[in-house]
């Protein structure tokens, strides 16, 4: 085909210039691909951290307000157990009645980080206009202190505190909440028929460290739960240790001295569409003014540490650097194409004299520019892959510090006695930085290459379109 022959010969004739233009575009496009890959890697790391907290498919999370930590020296709330140490040993007091604590085990399953919300509000949230689905959950903390019999005596042992997080899962909405993000590695997950059963699914990390497996039993404030499955959560989160049916968590859990029956402390919400998330957030805030309403994006903004800094770096510096390099590459390509057209005025004038229409000559020049763009794009994708591989190979693990929805229960002990509370905790996790080139990044690179070629060619084409054959031939003469 004449078009291809002519195009190929011209590229060969201007080999050095073609390589220069293609390389310029390659560097620009390679940088865009690398930055996009890094950005995608950071986003994935953020997503892993967030999904491990709130689960896949959750757009909005509603939590009760965090409880205030008790002030030093204040009286314990009515019905609360306190633990006191004195010269005669340890005592446990409740409602003013004290008994010797030696040999006792104090065990609580409390609402971990948030005050409770009535379960009826879950249905109310689910009925909101832009809400697709809503599920309630209970993030609880099982805290126990075993007081040895010889505690307080000379040479006696110290109390052993133990704490792990328990998540009450709505078995009728398993696609929402932290369990949805996990993958079952052994046994099975919870199902609808487990709603009132004493069955539990364990986090793989907790199961390994406590040597538990499917078929084992796990004790939650003295109740035995049969382990039916083990799940692994995405790296980067701080998952609950045990997942049990919501109804069982409500039956066993307490908030201070109150039962949690008919209550939840977290509502996981899926919006009808991504565009509806801000509206849903407002609607829920109106319905539950005291609750904290968090979206994935607002939570992402609360993630701090090097992950956050890298995300900012990729989004801000990376993006602008890519744009700057691309603009430079496009400008250089356009100028060189203009210069090439200027050198070929006689050639184009002759072609016009032969009866070539301007648009045919423009197509020829555009074809050459786009071919250079595509070569540059292909090289740019290669550079992008190389850049992504280098980032993955040399980037240190990123740290992400996030507010934990399942905060650890803190046991404070002092002269006035010991008490426990659950502040809003933060935890820092290490997230591996993996820059991966996505199909959309490659598509964007091809698009940029074509755009670069078209842009470079269009300046030359504009000149050709204005070229009068007599002028072109006379100028040379």
């Amino acid at each position, binding site marked *: 085909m004449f078009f291809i022959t002519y195009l190929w010969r011209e590229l*060969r004739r201007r080999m050095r210039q073609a390589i220069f233009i293609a390389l310029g575009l390659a560097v620009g496009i390679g940088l865009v691909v690398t930055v996009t890959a890094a950005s995608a890697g950071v986003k994935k790391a953020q997503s892993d951290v967030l999904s491990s907290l709130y689960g896949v498919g959750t757009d909005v999370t509603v939590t009760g307000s965090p409880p205030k930590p008790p002030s030093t020296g204040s009286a314990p709330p009515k019905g609360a157990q306190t633990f006191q140490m004195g010269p005669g040993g340890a005592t446990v007091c409740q409602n003013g009645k004290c008994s010797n604590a030696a040999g006792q085990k104090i065990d609580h399953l409390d609402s971990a980080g948030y005050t409770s919300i009535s379960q009826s509000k879950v249905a109310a949230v689910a009925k909101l206009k832009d809400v697709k689905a809503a599920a309630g959950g209970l993030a609880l903390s099982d805290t126990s202190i075993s007081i040895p019999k010889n505690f307080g005596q000379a040479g006696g042992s110290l109390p052993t505190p133990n704490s792990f997080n328990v998540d009450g899962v709505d078995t009728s909405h398993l696609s929402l909440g932290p369990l949805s993000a996990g993958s079952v590695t052994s046994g099975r997950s919870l199902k609808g028929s487990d709603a009132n059963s004493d069955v539990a699914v364990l986090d793989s990390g907790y199961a390994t460290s406590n040597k538990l497996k499917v078929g084992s039993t796990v004790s939650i404030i003295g109740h035995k739960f049969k382990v039916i499955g083990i799940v692994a959560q995405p790296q980067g989160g701080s998952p609950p240790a045990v997942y049990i049916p919501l109804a069982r968590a409500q039956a066993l859990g307490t908030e201070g001295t109150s039962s949690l029956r008919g209550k939840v402390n977290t509502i996981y919400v899926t919006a009808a569409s991504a565009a509806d998330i801000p509206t849903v957030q407002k609607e829920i805030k109106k319905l539950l003014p005291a609750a904290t309403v968090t979206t994935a994006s607002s939570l992402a903004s609360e993630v701090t540490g090097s992950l956050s800094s890298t995300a900012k770096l990729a989004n801000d510096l990376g993006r602008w650097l890519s744009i700057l390099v691309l603009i430079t590459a496009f400008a250089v390509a356009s100028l060189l194409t203009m210069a090439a057209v200027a050198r070929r005025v006689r050639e184009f*004038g002759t072609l016009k004299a032969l009866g070539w229409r301007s648009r045919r000559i423009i197509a020829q020049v555009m074809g050459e520019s786009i071919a250079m763009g595509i070569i540059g794009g292909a090289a740019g994708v290669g550079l992008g892959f190389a850049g992504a591989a280098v980032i993955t190979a040399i980037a240190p693990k990123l740290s992400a510090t996030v507010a934990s929805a399942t905060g650890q229960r803190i046991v404070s002990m002092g002269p006035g006695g010991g008490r426990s509370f659950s502040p809003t905790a933060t935890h820092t996790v290490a997230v591996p930085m993996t820059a991966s080139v996505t199909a959309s990044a490659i598509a964007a690179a091809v698009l940029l290459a074509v755009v670069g070629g078209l842009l470079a060619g269009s300046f030359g084409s504009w000149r050709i379109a204005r070229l009068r054959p007599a002028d072109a031939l006379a100028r040379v003469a």
Partner: protein
Amino acid sequence: MYKLTDVTRLYAKGGRTVPAVRDLNLVISDGEWLAVQGRTGHGKSTLLNLLGGLDRPTSGIIEFDGKDLAQLREAQMTRLRAESIGFIFQTFNLVPTLSAAENAEAALIPLGIGAATRRRRVDAALDSVGLGDRARHLPGELSGGQQQRVAIARALVKEPKVLLADEPTGNLDEDTRDEIINMLEMLWRERNLTLILVTHDSTIARRAQLVGVMSKGRLSIRQDTRQRAATDSMTD
């Protein structure tokens, strides 16, 4: 073929209007050979551009086969050049990256002719100028005379009615000049072409039927052998 009536072409130059061609009246019939002479800058090339549809007159009428070129739209003018007018330039104006055959083929591209027919016509055109064995050579691999022969093949491959040649031997040595002019004369006779040739060389000009001299944009006919040629042919 051509009928020029009061043709003027003005150019703006440094704030002044310069007439490159003025009040030119001329009739050229099918198969005639007009040689145009004159000093540089006196309108020879402008006249050739007007006749070739590369430029439009400021005023006057240029009829080509009854059509006023000035009234044609750009696309129609381009089509006319593609179909009916062959150009030969002093500097050959070959595309340096294309072979001899591909340069000739370039003239057939606007006509939308199929590849097989194009190849056949290109081979025939190169054979007619004696370059059948140089079809794959790039212009840089050919001598000046050979390059001009490729340019002639390119002009003739589309079988035009008119051949416009602007100083076709200006860049050639004497022997090659004669070779090219002999070839042009032969092709003119064989193909009944209308040949309009701009030259500084009086030896070449004298071989034409009509010899005009451009001076300050005006054309004066110095030689017209058409009558004699017609008489000769009647006597023969």
